[in-house]
């Protein structure tokens, strides 16, 4: 709750103060506020500080922030802070984009802390509506407009399906509270051996479709490469990390509520996960643009993360946390580096931007390699640790899925190698721009390696 207060006040302040002013300073300012929020949320999660007094007015059956919710909120605000800081140097006038990013972040936090389907729906909307606008915020570029309209139309339909699903769940269970929603089918299943009512099954499928659309899992992913490519780089960095993280936390919380009737839904989650992993990885091999490659890579990562939905328990939050942390940090860093090396912003962002990087900026090329290794899941990086925890805990119940995941990771080396190849092997004539804000990249790389090497320490901190 405290994070929502801070972000809302910051958003309103920034909107008023930054009217018609250059965005850069406000980007740094907002980023610092977000870092502060992250620290407060971590303090709340570890019990160093207690913010309960701020939310006594709010009934706990609507929204609740326990330790794990605080940690995921901290993760979200940290990601947004990094995105705002790295992309702060720009020529935008007016701070409405920052305001909208903050509102979308509030939506993401609502999706993390929800205890009631109404709050989940509102969070999903608060996350989506600013993003529809932000995807098209580069109004002079045609592809940005295309991205906005595509995202808006698809998003509106998926929201409608999601809402219909909530209605079916309400009809089937008679409640919209997360604590109670899964009780009736679970009891019917456990005590009387009865099949789950059709209404609840339909509701689960429809609600899942709405959330799977947001995380761009396979049959619902067609929008994401186009939208990611068309939207401004900063917005793509936000969408591919924050939206996915929030939707995964919300999705796993919802499915955990229905874990009593897992046999009703696990088979189609497995099918979707397999389809997503294979489709994302294979389609990524064919791409020439950095943004499209990262978009398909994010689809593939959504496939791996669907494993977590199947094995989620109250105590396994750390797997999701570590995975989202490593995935988000490394993919933001890759995209930001490509963005800063790009000379002409109108041009398509292809792998040529990395040409000759190892000669001109060897340190940055090394960092690039670390980020690529982490995204691909190669040892000594956080990506490996995350995948290791995820796959090893899934293996007992879904060995086939883990096998497909390993196969997908092997395929993924094929396209992640393109980054390394153009940075190290190709000596380009291109005069790269200088990477700015270098210390942020160093920080990100250090976090990734630290999580990779001292994974156990991080886990202890997260509370396992």
């Amino acid at each position, binding site marked *: 709750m405290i994070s929502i207060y801070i972000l809302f006040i910051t958003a309103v302040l920034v909107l008023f103060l930054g009217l*018609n002013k250059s965005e850069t300073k406000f980007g740094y300012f907002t980023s610092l506020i977000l870092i502060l929020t992250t620290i407060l949320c971590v303090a709340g999660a570890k019990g160093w500080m207690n913010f309960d007094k701020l939310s006594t007015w709010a009934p706990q059956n609507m929204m609740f922030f326990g330790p794990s919710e605080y940690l995921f909120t901290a993760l979200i605000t940290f990601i947004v802070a990094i995105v705002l800081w790295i992309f702060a140097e720009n020529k935008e006038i007016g701070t409405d984009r920052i305001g909208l990013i903050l509102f979308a972040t509030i939506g993401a936090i609502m999706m993390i802390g929800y205890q009631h389907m109404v709050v989940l729906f*509102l969070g999903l909307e608060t996350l989506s509506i600013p993003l529809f606008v932000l995807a098209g915020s580069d109004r002079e570029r045609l592809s940005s407009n295309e991205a906005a309209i595509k995202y808006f139309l698809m998003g509106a339909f998926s929201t409608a399906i999601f809402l219909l699903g909530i209605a079916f769940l309400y009809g089937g269970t008679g409640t919209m509270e997360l604590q109670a929603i899964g009780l009736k089918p679970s009891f019917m299943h456990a005590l009387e051996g009865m099949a789950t009512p059709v209404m609840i099954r339909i509701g689960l499928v429809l609600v899942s479709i709405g959330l799977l659309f947001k995380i761009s899992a396979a049959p619902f992913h067609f929008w994401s490469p186009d939208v990611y490519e068309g939207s401004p780089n900063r917005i793509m960095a936000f969408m591919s990390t924050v939206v996915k993280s929030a939707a995964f936390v919300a999705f796993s919380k919802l499915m955990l509520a229905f874990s009593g009737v897992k046999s009703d839904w696990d088979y189609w989650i497995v099918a979707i996960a397999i389809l997503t992993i294979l489709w994302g990885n294979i389609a990524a091999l064919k791409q020439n643009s950095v943004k499209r490659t990262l978009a398909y890579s994010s689809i593939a990562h959504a496939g791996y993360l669907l494993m977590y939905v199947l094995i989620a328990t109250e105590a396994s939050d750390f797997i999701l946390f570590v995975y989202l942390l490593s995935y988000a940090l490394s993919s933001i860093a890759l995209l930001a580096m490509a963005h800063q090396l790009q000379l002409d912003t109108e041009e398509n962002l292809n792998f040529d931007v990395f040409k000759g990087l190892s000669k001109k900026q060897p340190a940055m090329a090394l960092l690039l390699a670390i980020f690529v290794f982490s995204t691909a899941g190669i040892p000594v990086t956080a990506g490996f640790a995350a995948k290791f925890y995820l796959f090893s805990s899934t293996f007992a119940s879904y060995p086939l899925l883990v096998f497909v995941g390993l196969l997908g990771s092997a395929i993924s080396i094929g396209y992640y190698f393109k980054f390394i190849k153009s940075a190290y092997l190709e000596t380009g004539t291109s005069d790269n721009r200088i990477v700015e804000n270098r210390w942020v990249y160093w920080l990100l790389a250090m976090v990734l390696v630290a999580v990779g090497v001292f994974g156990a320490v991080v886990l202890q901190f997260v509370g396992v």
Partner: protein
Amino acid sequence: MFNNLPIPFLVLSFFTILSALYVVTSKNPIHSVLALILTFFSISAHYVLLNAQFLAIVNLIVYAGAIMVLFLFVLMLLNLNKDAEPIKSNLWGIAAAISAGLLLLVITAAFQKAGENVVKHPVEGIGLVKALGQTLFTRFLVPFELSGALFLAAMVGSVLLGKRDKVNKDLLA
């Protein structure tokens, strides 16, 4: 058949059906839209008769207000005249009549069954603004407050899409 029904209901129903018929039969699209507004007004009056004040007001604001104004604007901007109207065969009319008739049949059947339960177990003051406000400000206070962020975001977004960049460049120079 009509003896036990209150007279205001009969009058209103007469108006509703008459204006709804005019929506369909009128050749001029503007007249159709105006008749549709009249239909919405009389449906709202039905809601008032059913003691559902809130629904009546929302129906007026949303349908008769916002959506119908949008319809009118579109019609006026498109400048529809008789030449431009696409020729439709009777088949469309028959198909529409059959599907609408089926919908009517299903809804009537459903409500005949449900109606008994509603009459047997009436809920006190369910359609009143007071009941709604009490629910909204006690049980659903959190979503209500949070939707403020949503609407603010939507407003900022529409301003961002709508504003002209040139103005800002001039101000900066």
